[in-house]
């Protein structure tokens, strides 16, 4: 028999025995690669004494639905959709290196706050993704209202007014990798707060501390805030609602968006239960801007 063949065959038999021991080895080695990852120590140092906040979400579900529904076919479908959206967003991040994304819609009530929150919940479930939610909608304060209890203390408006340090405004949520900045008390004129250099500086500071920053902003049309807010962000996601968003409004909104930053359009389609102004959940299907 060929010496080469014979020895190769013996080696193969041995390798079967070794396979089991190896997988534990591999796990251990890959852990050590992860430990040398980026933006972990700066963030740990900056966030070690963050205030704690609890989110109003149903117990085990990484999804917010305002009716407080338990798992059902609608929520399952929605969960899947958010995971698909997460995959697309993270793929974009891998190729282009974006860190901060502002999420908006043409007008109020199209689902941007719920989308932002659920996308953040979905992303923060991933291993070593540190996610920050920023409620930059100082008028409606939708994200802030999704807290279970308001712990008080400095928030975004205080940061922008120069009355609080960046790290003091960041709160740790009850989910390990998810952090949040509340809107704070609404001042008389919000656009002015975003005009100054504080907003840009704050977003720069955030991109040093978090892998992903999702910013909930006021609607695109009719308010000056969106443009000022998006100037300091790397990407823009637009939420479009089925049978609700008007073409004219879209056209108008499109004129106000920096197309180079447009990451994609989230289409809020299937209607589940609708109640109230902002609050419904819907399964978004995602249209990538390609």
């Amino acid at each position, binding site marked *: 028999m060929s010496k080469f063949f014979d020895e190769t065959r013996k080696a193969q038999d041995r390798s079967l025995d070794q396979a089991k021991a190896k997988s534990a080895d591999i796990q251990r080695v890959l852990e050590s690669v992860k430990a040398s*990852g980026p933006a972990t120590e700066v963030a740990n140092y900056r966030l070690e004494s963050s205030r704690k906040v609890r989110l109003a979400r149903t117990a085990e579900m990484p999804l917010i639905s305002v009716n407080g529904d338990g798992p059902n076919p609608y929520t399952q479908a929605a969960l899947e959709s958010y995971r698909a959206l997460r995959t697309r967003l993270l793929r974009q991040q891998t190729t282009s290196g974006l860190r901060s994304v502002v999420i908006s819609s043409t007008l109020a009530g199209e689902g941007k706050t719920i989308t932002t929150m659920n996308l953040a919940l979905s992303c923060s479930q991933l291993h070593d993704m540190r996610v920050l939610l920023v409620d930059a909608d100082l008028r409606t304060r939708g994200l802030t209202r999704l807290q279970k209890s308001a712990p008080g203390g400095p928030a975004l408006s205080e940061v922008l007014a120069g009355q609080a340090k960046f790290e003091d405004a960041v709160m740790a949520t009850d989910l390990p990798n998810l952090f949040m900045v509340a809107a704070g008390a609404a001042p008389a004129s919000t656009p002015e707060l975003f005009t100054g250099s504080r907003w840009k500086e704050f977003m720069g500071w955030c991109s040093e501390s978090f892998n992903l920053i999702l910013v909930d902003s006021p609607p695109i049309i009719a308010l000056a805030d969106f443009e000022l807010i998006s100037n300091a962000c790397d990407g823009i996601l637009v939420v479009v609602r089925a049978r609700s968003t008007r073409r004219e409004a*879209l056209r108008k909104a499109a004129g106000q968006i920096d197309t180079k930053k447009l990451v994609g359009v989230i289409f809020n389609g299937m209607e589940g239960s609708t109640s109230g102004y902002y609050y419904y959940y819907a399964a978004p299907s995602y249209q990538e801007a390609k």
Partner: protein
Amino acid sequence: MYLAFYELHEEPFRLTPDPRFLHLAEPHRGALTLLVQGVMLRKGFVMMTGPVGTGKTTLLHAALQILHEKSFSKVKLASAFLINPTLSRDEFLEALLQEFEIPCPSASKAQRLAALHQMLLETQRRGGTAVLLIDEAHLLSAELLEEIRLLSNADTYREKLLQIVLSGQPELAALVAKPELHALKQRIASRCVLRALSFPETRAYIAERLHAAGLRGASPFPAPTLEAIYRYTQGVPRLINLICEHCLEAGFTTERRLIGPDLVEDAAVALDLAGTAPVGPVKNTPNGQQPEARVPRSTVDILIEAMRQGRATAQE
């Protein structure tokens, strides 16, 4: 030395492949995971490509170090690291035996190959892994690439005896895509692509390195300075290290704890980077080359199409 002046323990922008002080930027961690995983899972060929200065060699060193230190605690990893692959077929084999420390008195190719194969089998018998890393692999001749592929034929049915990591500039991908190297291309089990950092990643990278070097107070690089650094380096890690190091030294000699954009410009001139910098402020757009390619149509079209498609599905 500027260390005391900036309250640092060590030089922040000196790279060491020691995994404990690696502090890789975002794109690099994924690449390192793929490299280590590919070797440990015995996938055979792993290819890494990336432009000049993005950290390929550093990653190869880091991967090898991690594999040596962390894996197979009792069994030695057999490794060969070729840093200059412009060799003939015979020289290549000779270099390989030298790197693997295989004694082979004979210069006959058959004998050398047999000695190599023996070593591979022996390593595998002890539960170890043999890995060959080739840096600057885009300089490999087609002839040598074919020779390397033939080496990989020393396989068992289940897994590869020799793990081969090819690392090189983006031309490597084009080289491997040539029709005559089809057989090699098929064998590449995993590919990692390195890219330059985006502006937010550049910021995070600089912050992380300063922190690792002991900085606890305010950064000596304020936002406008960071923008200037990105403008001149375009996010290439090697250039970021160079320019930041230069700035810290210049700041020390001129006694400026806070480094202004003017010092970045001086550094860029001194390092001859000034000619390549595009003018104008940094847009917060990630990674310059991406956006144009990504958004070919107008926003209105995209938005409207999204809406139309949504309507269609909603009506079904």
